[in-house]
């Protein structure tokens, strides 16, 4: 007899099926798609997006938004490089010549601090998270521009920037079939394992689902909701800064618009992966599937040499189709739960 539990499992992991379908489609479209070089490119592109989506997933599950992460990512990258390179033209640094490891610690703590401040504004200031993070998005971006006066801060050919280069660009080892795996991909993989454990198997994650599902109930049961919200934003800021570290190593020269408009892709990745914007629903694994799907489509369209004018149209449509499928997925799931409970 057909098992409903198996059906539920399939519905929950639909994103992976879609990923396989898309993958096969591109294999037939381009002979270069299934090359080690391309697979490695897809994974590397997914790495930075992945850490941001992981942070956003925590925030979304707790029933909040964080629009500010793209700016935090940019500022963290900028400050990290600025602290180690010389001042003056061509590099435009601070001339502080800080130890690069220390500068990374500074940049990561700054990300966490930004998140904490946002969390405080929301919880102590009693303001809506959407507005606070929107304001933060603008303020942090503005700070980046004011700080550099538009000049790119460059760590190019600077041995101090090697730590950034290591995380952003270095190849860790070669896997047959997948090509060279970069340190960034490994790091993102590790981030996902840790985040999955926190979300699924730790008290902290359970409480986030409870807050996202029924905030009043969570509060009544003794969960310190406001404290959890501050921690979630801190986590999101920290992961954004980690993404900044990766990106700084990839682009080396930091423009003041680094990461701009990235937030749309971050939300798309999370939502395609089945993380609900209403809070309380979604998993880290699903989010990872969303990230991989987006970067696969991105690379695939590139290889198919689709005109840049149409790429955005296709990306937008993909998000819509994914949402449509997800909505049906939720409906199907509820229907099958009703079917199971009626059988009893």
């Amino acid at each position: 007899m057909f098992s409903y539990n198996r059906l539920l499992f399939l519905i929950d992991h639909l994103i992976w099926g879609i990923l396989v379908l898309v993958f096969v489609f591109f294999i037939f479209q381009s002979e270069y798609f299934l090359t080690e070089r391309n697979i490695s490119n897809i994974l590397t592109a997914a790495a930075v997006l992945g850490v941001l989506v992981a942070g956003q997933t925590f925030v979304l599950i707790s029933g909040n938004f964080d629009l500010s992460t793209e700016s935090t990512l940019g500022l963290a990258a900028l400050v990290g490089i600025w602290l180690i390179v010389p001042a003056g033209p061509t590099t435009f640094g601070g001339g502080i010549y800080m130890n690069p490891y220390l500068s990374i610690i500074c940049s990561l703590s700054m990300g966490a601090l930004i998140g904490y401040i946002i969390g405080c504004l929301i919880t102590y200031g009693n303001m809506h998270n959407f507005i606070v993070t929107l304001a933060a998005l603008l303020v942090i971006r503005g700070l980046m521009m004011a700080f550099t006066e538009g000049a790119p801060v460059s760590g190019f050919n600077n041995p101090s920037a090697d730590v950034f280069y290591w995380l952003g660009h270095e190849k860790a080892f070669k896997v047959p079939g997948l090509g060279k795996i970069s340190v960034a991909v490994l790091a993102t993989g590790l981030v996902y394992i840790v985040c999955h454990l926190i979300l699924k198997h730790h008290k902290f994650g359970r409480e986030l689902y409870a807050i996202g599902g029924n905030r009043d109930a969570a509060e009544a049961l003794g969960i310190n909701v406001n404290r959890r919200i501050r921690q979630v934003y801190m986590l999101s800021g920290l992961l954004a800064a980690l993404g900044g570290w990766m990106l700084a190593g990839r682009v080396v020269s930091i423009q003041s618009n680094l990461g701009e408009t990235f937030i749309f892709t971050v939300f798309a990745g999370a939502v395609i992966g089945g993380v609900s914007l209403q809070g309380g629903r979604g998993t880290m694994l699903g989010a990872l599937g969303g990230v991989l799907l987006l970067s696969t489509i991105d690379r695939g369209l590139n290889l198919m040499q689709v005109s840049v004018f149409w790429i955005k149209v296709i990306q937008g449509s993909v998000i819509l189709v994914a949402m449509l499928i997800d909505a049906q997925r939720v409906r199907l799931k509820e229907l099958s739960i009703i079917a199971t409970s009626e059988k009893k």
Partner: protein
Amino acid sequence: MAILNLKNISKNFGAIVALDGVSLDLKEGEVLGLMGDNGAGKSTLIKIIAGNFKQSDGEMFFEDQNIEFNKPMDARNKGIEVVYQDLALCDNLTAASNIFLTREPKKKIGPFELIDYKKMFEKAKQLFAELKSETLPNETVRMMSGGQRQAVALARTKLSKAKVVLLDEPTAAISVRQVAEVLELIRQLKKQGISVVIISHRMPDVFAVSDRIAVLRRGKLVANKLAKNSSPEEVTALITGAIETA
């Protein structure tokens, strides 16, 4: 035996006297209906028992021990549980997760404490079996019937070994069907030997489940008698002040 004794409890908010020397006992396994008009002090009294407020004057004894609560968690730890109108369930979580929320069993892996799902589901299954409910621990609450949701709330009070359950206006803003379910929940609690205090101004609900009725008027206790010796008419008169005391 009385599980909870209130002796001369008074509470004032600035110049406003919300409670004026209320003395009340709650016996083991008893359902007490606390009645009164808006502003009579019912909710204030419940909130003092639940640890939300501290009394301005008077003493509370729980199982013959003098107690003082600084926060709701203190009361919960003693076994005084508040059941909310919506039963405080998270629709997006499974039955087991709801029961164990904030009290999940844990296992240690190195320096990390992870949730022991196996133990959690087994214990939840056991609690449902004791309640003779067919609710499955891994079922999501969103799709549950009213009866099953109640079983989850009941299992939660059973898990915490609650001795006293407080319900503040449990039937005020819900459908007729849900009212019947809440009343059934109260009977179930009583069957488990748990004492219940229910606040409501819906007369039929209170008379349907209460053993004893206490009436507050302007912060003073004006009646405290067995439900079978009273009547809705008498209680209405007591609430409005048509009868002084009874």
